[in-house]
């Protein structure tokens, strides 16, 4: 009886050895796939950055220009033009003020007399 149990043990060992031969093939992911994925990510991020840049430029270019002055309700976006208009306006004012200066001068001279 004992030798049969030993034989049974041997059979179980034999079964285990044969069962261990049962193997499976798994599709492993290699480093290559990982680096390709890295490149894909890099390309994706670059594309996103470029798109952001283009959008930023578009927003900057399409921004309404700065208005320096209004002449007859017309906005002036050129600084030089606005300065020229301002100079003209103050020159006119200077001319308009000229008679008043004469009157004041006369008044002062009368007072002195």
């Amino acid at each position, binding site marked *: *009886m004992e030798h*049969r*149990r030993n*034989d*049974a*043990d041997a*059979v*179980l060992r*034999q*079964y*285990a050895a*044969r*069962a*261990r031969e*049962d*193997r*499976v093939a*798994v*599709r*492993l*992911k*290699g*480093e290559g796939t*990982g680096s390709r994925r890295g490149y894909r990510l890099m390309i994706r991020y670059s594309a996103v950055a470029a798109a952001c840049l283009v959008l930023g430029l578009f927003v900057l270019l399409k921004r309404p220009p700065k208005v320096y002055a209004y002449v007859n309700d017309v906005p002036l976006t050129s600084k030089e033009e606005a300065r020229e208009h301002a100079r003209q306006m103050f020159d006119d004012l200077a001319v308009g003020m000229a008679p008043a200066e004469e009157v004041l001068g006369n008044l002062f001279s009368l007072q002195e007399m």
Partner: protein
Amino acid sequence: MTAQELNTEFVEVKDAAYRYAASLLHSRSEAEDIVQDLYEKLWRRRLLVRKKGFVQLVMVSTRNMCMDVFRRRNTDGSSAELIEGMEAGTGGAGIWSASDGERGCREEMFWWEEEKEQQDMAAIAGRLISRLPQREREAVHLRLVEEMDYQLIAQIMGINESAARMACSRGRSKVKDELVKIMGYGTQKK
């Protein structure tokens, strides 16, 4: 764990996981799918996976995925009973018990089933093991084929060490008794 480390570690344990899944599901193709799915999952989480306890992680995950497969099958009462047995760690008769052995779900033959030669005792041992109650079958498989220690078997099966030891011993004893009977057939004196 880096990609290369994961590959190295997984290659070492994949066959054990496959055999374990095949012994639980009794289906080669499903076991293959489970091992591949498990690898994909581990690959996605490879930065969180540690080397320590990797074998246990793989085997426990395999067992859990097998349970999911049983849940998906869930067509008859026996599979429900098996899930309950696996969850509780009690192990009922299982769908591959002697009475259910010839039924349904299995589409591929294992080497011990393909064996036509009845004298091939290893094949007979395989058949006998496949007919053990689920818990004993699991314990016997992990101990006998995968040569794992009882502590790891207990961790994988979610039971304590003494229960694992007992299940293994009982299953092995049953198989040996059957083998002794078969080997002594025709030679015993009446």
